[in-house]
């Protein structure tokens, strides 16, 4: 039947359309959300680099959005500026309904095992080539995120101080290679 053939052909376009819409949605979220910078810390100094991803923990100050009673539940953290810095940190935590009613910029997440607050922002892809100089989270590391009015956030860029992580790592890599070259020249007869 012609109708069913048209429907069949239309269904073949679904993967292309779905992926395109998802990509556009992610890009719009990244561009249009409020950009906030949050400090990060490593949560396992022995394993900060898994595969090609930097893994870390957001520094949300003294807020405790999760404890045992909130396991697997959705919680939110209100973000407020840290005085005299370009960064934000957690100023209050609670149910998403109460936080959304009282806070302009907030982060939505889920409470995982061990009281960890997971926002989906805990990893950042870096080229494997730069991994040797990023085995520990450098001091003054921070993450630029894009947050929408629903509290959903997306990672935009990873910084070390004010330098983006790729530029920082390239600089460290060049310095390391130069140091090796000097050591090799000194060691050779």
């Amino acid at each position, binding site marked *: 039947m012609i109708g069913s053939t048209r429907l069949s052909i239309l269904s073949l376009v679904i*993967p292309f359309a779905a992926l395109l819409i998802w990509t556009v949605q992610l890009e719009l979220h990244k561009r249009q959300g409020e950009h906030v910078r949050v400090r990060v810390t490593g949560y396992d100094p022995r394993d900060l680099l898994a595969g090609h991803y930097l893994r870390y923990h957001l520094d949300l100050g003294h807020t405790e959005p999760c404890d045992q009673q909130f396991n697997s539940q959705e919680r939110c953290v209100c973000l407020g500026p840290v005085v005299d810095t370009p960064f934000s940190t957690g100023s209050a935590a609670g149910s998403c309904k109460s936080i959304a009613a009282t806070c302009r910029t907030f982060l939505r997440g889920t409470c995982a095992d061990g009281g960890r607050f997971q926002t989906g922002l*805990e990893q950042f892809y870096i080229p494997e080539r730069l991994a040797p100089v990023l085995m520990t989270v450098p001091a003054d590391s921070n993450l630029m995120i894009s947050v929408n009015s629903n509290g959903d956030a*997306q990672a935009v860029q990873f910084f070390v101080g004010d330098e983006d992580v790729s530029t920082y790592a390239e600089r460290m890599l060049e310095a390391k290679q130069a140091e090796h070259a000097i050591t090799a020249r000194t060691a050779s007869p």
Partner: protein
Amino acid sequence: MNVEKRLKEWVEAGIIDQVQSLKIAEFERDRPSANWMVYSLVALGIFAICVGIVSVIAANWDEISPTVKLFLYFMVLFGVTAGVISRFNKPGVTREALLGVLGLLPLAGIGLISQIFHLDGESYRATLFWLLITLPVTLQANNRYLHHIWMIGFYETAITWIVAASPSSHLYDYRLGIAASLPYFVLGAGYGLGHLLSPSFWNAARTWSYIVLLGGMGIAADIAWSSYPDMDSNIPLIYFIIGLFVAAYGVYFRSILPGRSTSKAILTTLALSAILIMPPLSGLTHSNELAGCVLFILMWFGAAASAAIAERRRLFDLATLVIGIRFIVAYFQVFGSLVATGIGLIFSGLLILAVAMFWHRHRKEIAKAIKEAAL
């Protein structure tokens, strides 16, 4: 080749004459199934392409900007989609190859987009998204490899969905309750809808549902019967019971594999599987090893009977093999200490050989007897 060899044997035995032999050989040569070797090679090629694409995505492309990566990916996906649409009404290897690529390429795309936008999250979300957007494509294909891969992805997603929750939490129990019912729901759909849309897809659905139900869940339940119950278990059984009724409904009102004997055998197998699996889920086993063993063997006996009635010899052989292995495991559980001595090992080995020889010599008679008893 196998057909021609057999035809020669039949002609020599006087079962058929030379003219009939030639007609049968010609018929077999023209059958579409003769192209399955080509399909297999094409499937291997597609798999290698998709693995290659995923590998390239996983490697470092820091010299190429994310925009270019995405543009190239969507161009390839667009090209494959256009190719499928243009070949849609022309059945053949090209159509199936393109549908296979269209079914697997979105998985690579999800990986690429996740990497570019630094997305984090449970893997089941990614595979669930892939399953949903490729289901219409999978149903349009006559490609059984794609159907089996999709079903493997379906059950893999269910398993990762369960383990994503903390093991001692209510969420874990809730997810386990739902996931345990999935094979029954899929079997219900597989039998009830088996004559519609894509029979090959529903065949793959039934195959993997039986593997999960009789293999995975059956073995896990058998082991659970021998342990002490988890009195804190809050696994909801309502989904399991509804799934069982859906499966029974699908089997009873199915259009494929007709016959009352077949219905009886399949329904008996499903009922026995439920009796085996439900008590461990609800924490009512009370460490009853013998009950678990008996129920497991009875469930697989039902599967053997179903295979015998449907004249599926390989399935019958597999079912009886599983029963034999479970008997041997039970023997070692009961007489384990005998194995420690040399004489015990010799006796055990002789017993295993005797069981294997008996099964090999008499399995056809056993299958025939089961079929006659059912009829």
